[in-house]
């Protein structure tokens, strides 16, 4: 027992040290890898990285006060995103916030990409899934922002941290299997991903149309060949393909179909809290695909200090507690409803050619497109 505890503590220390080292050496690493020269924004961030924490925090807040504005694309939707932004604004009322909050993760990345391609430096930061940053990273549009705020991230989620500091992971989304307990008797309840091929569920398992994040998660779990095999047998089981995660969840709970082959799990939990009779169960025995959601700063951000202030604040206690209260996955606190025993699969973006093959498999087997 003692030995285990020591090991855990040592691991945590090592991880903290590694993160600190990564933070301090980031600018050097960036240059060593032949990255383009730092922009004015990145130079500010490199200077900040060299300061002691209290001084750094003071400089950021002072700079943000002078800027007085933050332009943000936030992809937590509706009241969830509005509540988060309101919390931030309450903490830093001197900032005028210009927040676009009705776009998806890919749209957020696309908007920044469009603006920067056109030479307009309008947006300071975006919130997006890390895999949607690919193109922005390839075009070197994301600022390297080393921050000690990431030290608060729990060891379980440290793999979300970017050694090159191009994003700040601050929450994660869970994709997993769930089912309607009224339509699925306990003895038939799915236990793992291969159970989606069970003929008992024929015509009763739903998915969204092709999603890179789902396929990349399966690929991380099963490998390319395993994923294609799974897609083939899912396709043979006559799946339902319908757009809209929350819509599908509502339909399943109303009795439209039996199983969510892939969906965010929190919405069903939220519905069950509202209506305890909602016939909802999560398959905890199947690994859950974890997508890293991050804040990324524009390397030409017009308000770099305000962007840094927001990025750091996302990992603050109040921001993370808010996420947990809203049933989303915080990274500095335990998950609000998933047990620790559940197996998480980090959603790692595969090489483009692999993703192309996975998508082709999806269209061929699951959507049965000609």
């Amino acid at each position, binding site marked *: 027992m003692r030995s285990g505890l020591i090991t855990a503590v040592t691991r945590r220390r090592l991880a903290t040290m590694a993160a600190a080292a990564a933070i301090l050496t980031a600018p050097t690493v960036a240059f060593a890898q032949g990255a383009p020269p730092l922009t004015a924004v990145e130079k500010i961030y490199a200077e900040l990285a060299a300061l002691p924490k209290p001084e750094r925090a003071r400089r950021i807040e002072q700079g943000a006060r002078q800027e007085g504005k933050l332009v943000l694309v936030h992809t937590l*939707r509706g009241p969830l995103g509005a509540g988060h932004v309101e919390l931030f604004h309450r903490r830093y009322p001197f900032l005028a916030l210009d927040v676009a909050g*009705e776009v998806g993760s890919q749209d957020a990345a696309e908007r920044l990409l469009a603006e920067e*391609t056109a030479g307009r430096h*309008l947006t300071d930061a975006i919130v997006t899934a890390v895999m949607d940053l690919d193109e922005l990273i390839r075009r070197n549009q994301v600022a390297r922002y080393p921050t000690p705020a990431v030290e608060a991230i729990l060891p379980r989620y440290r793999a979300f941290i970017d050694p090159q500091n191009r994003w700040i992971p601050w929450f994660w989304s869970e994709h997993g299997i769930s089912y309607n307990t009224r339509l699925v008797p306990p003895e038939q309840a799915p236990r793992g991903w291969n159970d989606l091929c069970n003929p008992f569920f024929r015509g009763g398992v739903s998915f969204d149309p092709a999603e890179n994040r789902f396929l990349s998660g399966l690929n991380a779990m099963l490998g390319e060949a395993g994923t294609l095999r799974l897609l083939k047998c899912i396709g043979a089981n006559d799946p339902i393909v319908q757009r*809209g995660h929350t819509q599908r969840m509502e339909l399943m709970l109303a*009795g439209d179909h039996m199983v969510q082959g892939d969906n965010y799990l929190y919405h069903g939990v939220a519905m069950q809290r509202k209506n305890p009779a909602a016939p909802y169960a999560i398959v905890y025995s199947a690994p859950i695909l974890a997508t890293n959601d991050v804040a990324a700063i524009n390397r030409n951000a017009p308000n770099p200090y305000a962007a840094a202030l927001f990025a750091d604040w996302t990992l603050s206690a109040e921001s993370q507690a808010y996420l947990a209260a809203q049933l989303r996955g915080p990274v500095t606190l335990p998950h609000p409803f998933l047990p620790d025993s559940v197996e998480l699969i980090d959603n790692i973006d595969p090489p483009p050619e692999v993703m192309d093959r996975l998508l082709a498999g999806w269209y061929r087997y699951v959507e049965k497109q000609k």
Partner: protein
Amino acid sequence: MKDRLGWREAALALLIAVLTYQVVVPFVVIIWTSLKQARPGEPDFLTLSFTLANYARAYGNAAFWHTSWNTLSFALAATLIAFVIGAFMAWVLARTNTPLAGLIGFMLIGRIVIPGILIAISWILVASPNIGLVNQMALKLLGLRNPVNVYSFWGMVWVQALELVPLVYLLLAAAFQAMDPRLEEASSMTGAGNWRTLRRISFPLALPAVAAALLLLFLTTIETFEVPLLMGTRAGVRVYTTEIFYDTSRTPIDWGLSSTYAMALLAVALVLLLAYFRLIGHGERYQTITGKDFRPRRIDLRSWRYLTCAVALLLVFLITGVPFLMMLYASLLPFYQAPSAAAFASMTFDNYWTLFHNTKTIAPMINSTILGPATATAVILLVALISYFVQKTRMRGRRLLDILGFAPIAIPSVVLGATFFWFYLIVPLPILGTLLIIGLAYLTKYMPVALRFVSASMMQIHGELDEAAQVAGVSWARNFCKITLPLLKPGLLAAWFWVMVHAYRELTIALMLARSQNRTAAVVIFDLWEEGSFLLLGAFAVLMFVVLIALSAAAHSISRRFGVREQLA
């Protein structure tokens, strides 16, 4: 004479300038983008090297042709069904003595204010397998399992057709009301019955409106998005708009490819438009409004009028009643459940209180309340001018004005929104994030439908009125404002209403151009939909329905005050 020419030329110059800016520029951007592999804004984008690579990619695979087949068959089926129902309603309500015609017409038009996405959701709740109201009743009462399935090709066609009926009604009712009854009386006097008169006189006289309706229905269905997305995806029926949607849902978006798809839509629209011009080639044949006064005559159906009333009531119940009642029902529930005694017992106003306490929903409502009427007024003025120059002058190249005014119907909203976004990113006019950029995009988007409404009415006005004004020495501007526009009132009012409501509830463009200060009501709807708050969405839709009905009633009252006596219904 000099004065008349001066005003006319000034109006024409202004018209050409506006059309160039609002239509030619977006088309140049789209055509240019379709011939480029670089993204807008990249250095290569503005060079003069072009490629057909996007065309080869878009049209060179079997999936494109399969999608084309789906799109065209879906559009054709929905068009025919919508036309039959809409024409029946227009004739029965506008030209016969069917009881309750005013009420039924009002309810039918009221349907337009319900956003398409909510119509689709409502029908999912009505005719979905397992949980749909109809299927549940069929199981309980008849022991039949899932006799109807909204997630099918014909399910899509049915919902889309019902969605389009009010458009047919507005177009044809305006044309029927503007019809000179003496022609029908002459037919009756020669011994022709009601049916023969309808077939030989009334419908042929309404041919411009009929052709416009068919054209608009077909193109609107090709461009429609909500039904194919919500039902077609599950039914495995992919159409152009869902392909474009999925193609533009990945980062980086392939703008070249989506512009190339828009070019296919443009080709279809141009072919149909040319066919339309050919069909109505001699506009003077349809002129029924002359210098002589008349009032449209209502045909006496005798006892058949009760049957037409019953059928019209049933149809209006399906078209307006079902979606509205489903929304009202959902808005009062704490969580969604099929109708039952327990469900009714659990009803609450909580969703409405939640909306009222959310200040984030008020500003978008105000924005839409500004955008809807402002867009509609600007569009109507513009299309009235286009229509005048096309129909009432012998000016060379006048058809080009019509084509320019109508061509934007070929641009899917997602592409149009992106074009405006890109254009104002590259051209640094400070309108990004304002209501103005959305309004300008709407001006382009809604011009085609409004143009067909107004053109069909303009075609019915005889040239002798214009000539009489000229002889009397009335200036062109005075003639246009005091004679032409008032005579167009039924068509103008119908078009204004149509544009106002659609601009109020438009989603795709508003979403692409939304920033923090210019969110619209539809963006809130989408937000509620995306976060799965269907019940809140129901409450929001009921409120929106009330606001739009109030706006429409206000507009109607204002127009009556300024002399419009015609009723929409």
